[in-house]
């Protein structure tokens, strides 16, 4: 089966096209660096596999996601390439195209975002482009699917994509060096195109250098490159060899663009100009960001999410529970089964399902922000603050994604260039309050701060960010010796997110939550219920004599200084490590609550407002969940850092909850 790879600059619509051509739902967003992993899908017409790669500017990677793409091209061998270029940014995009043509595989040029180019009065003559580059050029609008049929039928006969014959002449001096390097490479087998390797070597592409180093002695090759460079310097043609190659390419592209681009009636990007004047305004920009965040939480809790959640709650505690009760009675289920289903599964899983509407609305708004182009602006607004803390503004894209779920957020940190910044972002991610922690806040806020729910919940998120900033400063000072960071972000044009994309990406994010409800939360609920049903004295014991109470009782004394030293609170924490939602499931089971109102009543008796705050803070900070720990390990590739991230969270949670509770008591609050 043949494999065809999608390659192109970041944010040009590769994943959008991938989704249409393979009927998948991979992550799409309007900033550079959305895709950070290689993704594989099957072409709709069965013509083979399509590979989606992270966006790259050149084959010389800077960040980890770019490394993935460069590595792929060198180590694996796709049959053909689809090079996606942004028609409204043709000049910049073609620099990569030239290097891909040198790669020598059959290539199709996908001229994407034709709609954007047209709207801006930029006309690209695709026939001339096709003629000059010698490869098929197809105009596309990946977002609506225009042109996808043509691509599919072209790929249907991938053998028919003509081989590339494009060759750029780099001048006598460089060409001589290329020829001698090619000669040295001749005996090697299984290498991509030799001319391409020679050129990449001369550009000092680290991926190619490493790849060759593992197979041959490259000292001679490097010497050839050096000699060529001195020759260029002597003739005053360029300072370095890479610079020379680049300038030859740029010259070619400039003359090509003169032929194919018609920018006679080019217009500025009006919408983007106007929105930026407001959203990145030097005084209003930040307050507007804070207002948008506030609106996000207000919508999630008060305006839309709350009422919907109440509906679901009514459904579960009413018809569903009653239905299950009578069905079980009718079937003559044993007491054990009956209790397992009603007190275990329905209470545990149902108690979390209640929050589905709120979580989906949160995801919907995050998806909207992702696809609008605002995320890059947030990075811009936050950079000066982040710089003072020893990080850079780009960390805010992962941070906001982390409000949904920490796992994809840690992956998103791959597009941060500096290893130190990436490490800091990864380590701090558990402090971003993910949607799994939301049920806990929602529950406690409803009990103790009914008038100011959105505000109470928002303050948890803010608290998480504040601690992230403080620790960022400390970590970058202690662990990274205040190594300076760099910052540069591309600001894509704003786009109105499409309903189709929005609903898909909301569903893709929310699906994970539903899946968890059916797996970890379900299993957790059954186990928790079992250990609350059984005890040293046998089955069906009073809850206070159950294994769960014994176990929670072991932890409780440790938690007493924090204000919630009960076995009930203690026993929620350990299963909460598996998935934070299980904290609420466990509470539902322990307090035997028939519905949320019942649970709220119970909680108001065991917690005081002060201990509730302390508990919410503890849940916010105490530990990254199992899945997050897994991805931290994978991304840092170090157990040391993984344990560090868990350890500092525990210490921080304990200290802060302790201080809050004890000082609150001193002030006479309760």
């Amino acid at each position, binding site marked *: 089966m043949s494999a065809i790879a999608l390659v192109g600059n970041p944010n040009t619509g590769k994943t959008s096209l991938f989704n249409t051509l393979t009927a998948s739902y991979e992550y799409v967003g309007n900033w550079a660096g959305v895709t950070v992993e290689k993704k594989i899908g099957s072409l709709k017409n069965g013509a083979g596999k399509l590979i989606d790669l992270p966006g790259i500017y050149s084959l010389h990677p800077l960040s980890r996601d770019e490394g993935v793409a460069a590595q792929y091209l060198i180590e694996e061998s796709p049959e053909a390439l689809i090079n996606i270029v942004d028609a409204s940014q043709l000049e*910049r995009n073609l620099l990569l195209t030239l290097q891909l043509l040198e790669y020598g595989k059959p290539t199709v040029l996908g001229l994407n975002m034709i709609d954007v180019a047209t709207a801006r009065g930029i006309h690209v003559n695709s026939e001339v482009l096709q003629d000059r580059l010698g490869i098929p050029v197809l105009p596309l609008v990946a977002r609506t699917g225009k042109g996808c049929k043509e691509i599919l039928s072209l790929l249907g006969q991938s053998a028919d994509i003509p081989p590339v014959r494009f060759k750029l002449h780099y001048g006598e001096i460089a060409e001589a060096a290329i020829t001698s390097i090619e000669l040295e490479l001749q005996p090697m087998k299984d290498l991509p195109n030799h001319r391409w390797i020679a050129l990449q070597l001369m550009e000092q592409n680290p991926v190619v250098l490493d790849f060759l180093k593992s197979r041959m002695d490259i000292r001679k090759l490097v010497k050839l490159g050096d000699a060529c460079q001195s020759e260029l310097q002597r003739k005053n043609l360029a300072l370095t060899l890479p610079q020379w190659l680049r300038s030859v390419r740029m010259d070619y592209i400039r003359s090509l663009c003169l032929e194919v681009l018609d920018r006679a009636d080019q217009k500025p990007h009006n919408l983007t100009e106007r929105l930026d004047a407001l959203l990145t305004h030097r005084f209003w920009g930040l307050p507007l960001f804070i207002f948008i965040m506030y609106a996000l939480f207000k919508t999630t809790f008060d305006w839309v999410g709350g009422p919907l959640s109440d509906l679901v709650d009514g459904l579960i505690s009413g018809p569903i529970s009653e239905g299950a009760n009578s069905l079980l009675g009718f079937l003559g289920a044993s007491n054990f089964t009956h209790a397992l289903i009603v007190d275990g599964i329905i209470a545990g899983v149902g108690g979390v399902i209640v929050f589905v509407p709120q979580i989906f609305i949160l995801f919907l708004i995050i998806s909207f922000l992702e696809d609008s182009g605002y995320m890059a602006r947030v990075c*811009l607004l936050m950079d*000066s603050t982040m710089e003072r803390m020893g990080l850079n503004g780009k960390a805010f894209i992962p941070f906001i994604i982390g409000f949904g779920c920490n796992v994809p957020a840690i992956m998103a940190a791959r597009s941060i260039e500096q290893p130190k910044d990436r490490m800091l972002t990864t380590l701090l991610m558990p402090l971003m309050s993910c949607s799994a922690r939301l049920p806990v806040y929602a529950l406690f806020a409803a009990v103790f701060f009914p008038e100011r729910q959105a505000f109470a919940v928002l303050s948890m998120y803010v608290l998480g960010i504040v601690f992230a900033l403080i620790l960022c400063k400390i970590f970058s000072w202690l662990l990274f010796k205040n190594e*300076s960071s760099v910052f540069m*972000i*591309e600001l894509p044009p704003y786009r109105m997110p499409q309903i189709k994309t929005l609903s898909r990406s909301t569903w893709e994010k929310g699906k994970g939550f539903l899946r968890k409800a059916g797996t970890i939360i379900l299993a957790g609920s059954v186990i928790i219920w079992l250990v609350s049903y059984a005890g040293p004295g046998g089955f069906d014991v009073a809850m206070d004599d159950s294994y769960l109470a014994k176990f929670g009782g072991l932890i409780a004394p440790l938690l007493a200084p924090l204000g919630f030293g009960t076995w009930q609170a203690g026993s929620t924490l350990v299963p909460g490590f598996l998935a934070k939602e299980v904290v609420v499931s466990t509470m539902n089971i322990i307090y035997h609550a028939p519905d949320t109102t019942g649970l709220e009543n119970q909680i108001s008796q065991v917690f005081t407002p002060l201990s509730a705050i302390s508990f919410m803070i503890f849940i916010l900070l105490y530990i990254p969940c199992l899945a997050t720990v897994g991805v931290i390990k994978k991304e840092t590739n170090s157990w040391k850092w993984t344990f560090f991230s868990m350890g500092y969270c525990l210490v921080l949670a304990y200290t802060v909850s302790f201080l809050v509770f004890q000082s609150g008591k001193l002030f006479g609050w309760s």
Partner: protein
Amino acid sequence: MTLHLCSLLQLPTGSTVSIHKIEGINPILRRRLADLGVLEGVRIRLKGKGPFLGPITLECNGQLFAIRRKEASRIEVNLA
């Protein structure tokens, strides 16, 4: 041709100039700028300055991007 050189940062918002020299900036950043085609001789436009001495927004070849003031001050431009 006479040169009127100054740093990018000293320009008033909204002006378009050509880059004379990029020197002494972090190599990672330099590569990134080159990726976007920000090189000597290229026209560049200062779009705006961010809050709290934050990054400045630039436009080059129709692409908007932002860099910090410190780095912008190392980009020497030609007013002529």
